[in-house]
Each structure stands twice: as structure tokens, then as C-alpha cells.
């Protein structure tokens, strides 16, 4: 318990040194994966398992109940098959390598929700995939890759390097010396600057802050043998480092995400949905199949206007008395971001649909003949989003649905409010132990 409180204490000390960087609003509001899109859902919380065990657990928790398979009520899951296993030789320099780019960044999504199906509301499941394609010329990709590699390398050299050097120092420090000598030797090294010189000369302030804020708080300069505290010191310093680096890690992760988007503006997706009218797996009906290609673009970097154009084909399967239909959508979405931290965004979507639906059947000489009815349909939506804090955003959507769609009420008004959040683990003081030491715990 004492050991845990040591490094939780370290986390708290550095929580107060929270970095100024804030999450982009797009990192809070989830983008819609094909499985969610085909069901027309916008989940606020998407499960993203990144290994086989996590995927199995997520599927088991949602699909198995009382030793039987059940239709999940509200499942939102997206994963990248490539990343379900480790890749020991894939380094940070390889993100924009064209070999295997599509495979590495392809994703599969699964969703379930109660949605409109024909004239009723029915439990449906959607299954989708997303395949990004590397686009852009070799020169621009090379420049993006160079910038990204430079960012990561600079951080490695200026931050992670001194941290691993210091962890190496405490690991190899003589266990037969006392804690008094340990603190004295650190102070002495800052003056005499032995090898590794970079640690003691260029990062003297970082080392001093680390020692003052963590080690000197938790350990006394006394006659205790250093070896008796080595494991606790390693844990404490590691916890301190992790908290110190957190916001840098978030910022670099976002930079990598943006670089991946910049070089893969073209994306092919597909999804299929099934309806389960009895809420059981043994009776299902294919509901809808969709295939689409989308291209993202930046209209203006300065004013943060970007958008997506997409062409989508949707096949509606027959529902009750409603016959099959072919739909071709032309979609344009524009996003406007305001404020230096993109606190407000407005997103406008227009969908122009050409629809060809079977309306009735005539049988002549035993052969069925269908009559098709063609029409043009439209859908408009405007999303207004505001980031309230680093990890909470509100979104209000208003618009008009398609006039003829199996899954929505014709020409219905779109008007719904969403709250999105990103869990951000923080440490708070939770009380005191029997010895009067502060106890700390994680708080979401």
C-alpha cells in the first residue's frame, strides 16, 4: 500500500504541472465508422480493443449471456486487425511507409442498436470495414514523414533520453551505499558532470526537480542501505516520468493521426446491416448493404475549413411489403473550426440521393416483371459542437431526413443533442493512512 501511495503521490505532484496543450475537438467527438453509419448511430463511447484478448473479452461481454449468444443492445466496437498482434520491427519511422500502409490502417467495425426497420423499430447489427489508400505525391509524403520523424526524434533526444539515462543511473547505483550518500552523489554529479555528461550537464534542472518533487519527499537522507529501496525508487521515478510525459504523448499521437489522415485522403468503406426482429440470432434478415468511397480535403489551413466528398451505393433489402431499392448518394460535408483551440466547430452535410425502388410486381406467363420508381431525395444536417473542457464536448444536430428511407421517418426533423467525453485519469487525494500519510487514488 505504501508503495502504491509513493508513486500515486508522484503523479499528484505532477498533475499540478499539467501541460497547457488541449485536445482537438475531433479527438473527443468520435468519427463514425461504417458499421455505425449504416445503422445511423453516433456512439459516444467506442470500444477499441488492440489485442486478441481484449477483442475476445469485448465480444464475449457483449454477445454472451447465460451461456448463450444474445443480440447486443448497444455495441460500438472498432478495431484494426493488423494491430491485434505485436510488430517488433515496426518502428516510429515506419508510419508513413507505403509498404503495407493499407493493411496497417484498415479497420473493422461492429455495431448494434435499435433502429427503424420498415415500419417498426428493431434491434439491428452492422458490420463494416474501412480501407484507407495512400494518396498524394511522393514528395509531399516524404516531407510529412520527415517532419513527423523529426518531432519524435527531437522528443526522444531531449526528453526520453535523459529519463532513460537517469533510470539507468539509479539502477546501477551501488546498493551498498546509504540513502544519504545517494542524495549527496546526485548533487555532486550535477557539479562534476560525469558520464553520461548530457544527463548531468544539460538536464540538471530536470533531475533536480525530479529528486526534489519525488525522491526527497518519499525517502529520507539517512543510513538506510540504498539497495533496500531500489525497487521503490525505480517505481516512483517511472510513475513520475509517465505522468510528466503524458501530454507530450497525447500531442505526438495526434500528430501521427493527422499525418496518417494527410497521406490517406482517399478511403473505401463497406458495411452491411442485419435486422433481428425476434432479438435472437436464429432469425435475421439482411437489411442494407453499402459501399462508398470518400475523399477528404483541406480548403484552408488558416481558417481550418476541411471537408469530405463521397459517393455511396446502398442496396436496401426487401422489408415486409416494401420492395428492394438501389440508392446512389452524392455526399458533401464541410467542417469549420473556430478559435485557436478549435473550441467551436460547425459541420454541414448535404446528401443528394438517386433512388430506384421496386414498387410492384406483375407475373406474365409465369415470369415476374417489376416496375421501378425513380426519384431524387435529399438530406441535410448541421452539427454545432462546442468543447466545454479538455475532455467534454457537446454537439447539437439539426436537419431534415430523407423523404423515402427504410430506416427513418420520411422527411422527419433531425434534432438531437449529444455529449461526448474522453476519460482522462487523474489522481486525487483520497484520505490518510494509519500513519498519517496522504493516500491517493485514481479519479476519472
Amino acid at each position, binding site marked *: 500500500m505504501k508503495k502504491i501511495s509513493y508513486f500515486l503521490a508522484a503523479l499528484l505532484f505532477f498533475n499540478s504541472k499539467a501541460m497547457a496543450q488541449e485536445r482537438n475537438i475531433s479527438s473527443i467527438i468520435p468519427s463514425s465508422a461504417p458499421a455505425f453509419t449504416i445503422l445511423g448511430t453516433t456512439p459516444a463511447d467506442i470500444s477499441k480493443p488492440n489485442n486478441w484478448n481484449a477483442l475476445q473479452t469485448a465480444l464475449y461481454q457483449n454477445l454472451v449471456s447465460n451461456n448463450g449468444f444474445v443480440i447486443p443492445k448497444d455495441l460500438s466496437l472498432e478495431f484494426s486487425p493488423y494491430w491485434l498482434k505485436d510488430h*517488433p520491427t515496426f518502428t516510429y519511422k515506419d*508510419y508513413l511507409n507505403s509498404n503495407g500502409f493499407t493493411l496497417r490502417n484498415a479497420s473493422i467495425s461492429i455495431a448494434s442498436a435499435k433502429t427503424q426497420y420498415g415500419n417498426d423499430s428493431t434491434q439491428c447489427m452492422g458490420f463494416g470495414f474501412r480501407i484507407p489508400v495512400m494518396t498524394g505525391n511522393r514528395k509531399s509524403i516524404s516531407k510529412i514523414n520527415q517532419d513527423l520523424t523529426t518531432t519524435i526524434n527531437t522528443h526522444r533526444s531531449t526528453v526520453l533520453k535523459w529519463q532513460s539515462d537517469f533510470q539507468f543511473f539509479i539502477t546501477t547505483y551501488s546498493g551498498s551505499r546509504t540513502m544519504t550518500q545517494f542524495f549527496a552523489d546526485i548533487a555532486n554529479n550535477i557539479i562534476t558532470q560525469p558520464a553520461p555528461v548530457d544527463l548531468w550537464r544539460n538536464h540538471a534542472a530536470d533531475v533536480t526537480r525530479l529528486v526534489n518533487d519525488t525522491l526527497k519527499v518519499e525517502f529520507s537522507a539517512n543510513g538506510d542501505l540504498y539497495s533496500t529501496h531500489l525497487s521503490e525508487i525505480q517505481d516512483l521515478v*517511472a510513475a513520475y516520468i509517465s505522468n510528466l*510525459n503524458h501530454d507530450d*504523448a497525447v500531442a505526438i499521437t495526434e500528430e501521427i493521426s493527422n499525418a496518417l489522415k494527410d497521406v490517406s485522403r482517399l478511403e473505401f468503406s463497406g458495411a452491411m446491416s442485419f435486422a433481428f426482429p425476434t432479438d435472437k440470432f436464429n432469425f435475421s434478415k439482411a437489411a442494407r448493404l453499402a459501399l462508398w468511397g470518400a475523399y477528404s480535403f483541406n480548403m484552408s489551413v488558416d481558417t481550418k475549413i476541411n471537408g469530405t466528398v463521397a459517393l455511396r451505393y446502398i442496396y436496401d433489402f426487401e422489408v415486409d411489403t416494401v420492395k428492394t431499392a438501389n440508392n446512389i448518394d452524392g455526399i458533401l460535408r464541410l467542417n469549420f473550426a473556430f478559435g485557436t483551440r478549435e473550441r467551436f466547430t460547425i459541420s454541414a452535410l448535404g446528401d443528394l440521393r438517386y433512388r430506384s425502388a421496386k414498387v410492384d410486381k406483375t407475373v406474365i406467363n409465369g415470369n415476374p416483371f417489376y416496375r421501378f420508381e425513380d426519384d431524387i431525395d435529399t438530406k441535410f444536417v448541421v452539427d454545432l459542437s462546442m468543447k466545454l473542457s479538455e475532455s467534454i464536448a457537446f454537439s447539437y444536430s439539426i436537419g431534415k431526413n430523407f423523404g423515402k428511407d427504410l430506416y427513418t421517418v420520411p422527411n422527419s426533423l433531425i434534432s438531437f443533442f449529444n455529449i461526448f467525453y474522453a476519460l482522462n485519469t487523474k489522481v486525487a487525494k483520497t484520505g490518510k493512512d494509519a500513519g498519517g500519510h496522504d493516500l491517493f487514488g485514481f479519479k476519472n
Partner: protein
Amino acid sequence: MPSVFTVHHDVDFTPDNTNDYFLSVLVGNGQSGSTTFKNPAGDFFSPDVFNVPLGQGRELKGTSLPVVSVVMDINPQTDNMIVSYYITDTEVSEEELETLNPTDIVPFAAGANQTITFFSSLNFH
């Protein structure tokens, strides 16, 4: 979110007496990391440890050398980390390294954007 920020591991290796050996450490899964190592000659290496000379096998036998890697999760698609240790009897290029079987690997499932410290001990038998 795991409440541990350290991983401890032993890398066991039996060298041939007459061979010269080299150490390379690779941080995989697209994560960022710095590795610090001091070879038997007393030279420090960081943030990269690549083809670092260890000396002759007969001198290495019976010794243990610590290696420390600080790995930060930056991969948008996985929080998993993996550190690979290659002890080779010849210097290798980065391309060759990718085709070799590592002497040992240490995987770890970290939390989002965590930094984990890997403490490994190279034990020569």
C-alpha cells in the same frame, strides 16, 4: 489503466568463447523510446543502442549487464509495447536486423499515452 509503470526482465544468453558480440535494442509497435546501456568497455549509449560492441564471449560469461528502456505510447492504433533484444556475433544493418530472430522480446500492454520503463538484465552464462 495499469497501475504499474515498470517491467523487469532477464535476457539469458550463452555466448561462444571466441566470438565477438554486439547488442541492438529495438522498440517496436511504432512506439517512441530511449534505451540506455553501458558496455563492458565503459561507454554509454542512448537513446539508440545499435551494434554496440560487447566484447568476446569468454569475457562475457558469468556477467550481467543492465539495459534500461523508457518507452512512450504514441501509436494511435495500439497501446501495446514491445522491446526486442538482439545479441549478434556480427554487426548488422537495420534491414538485416528486421529479418533476424531476436534473442528475446518483452511485450507489455500499457495504458493510453503511458510511459513505461523496461529494466532488463543481460545474463551471460
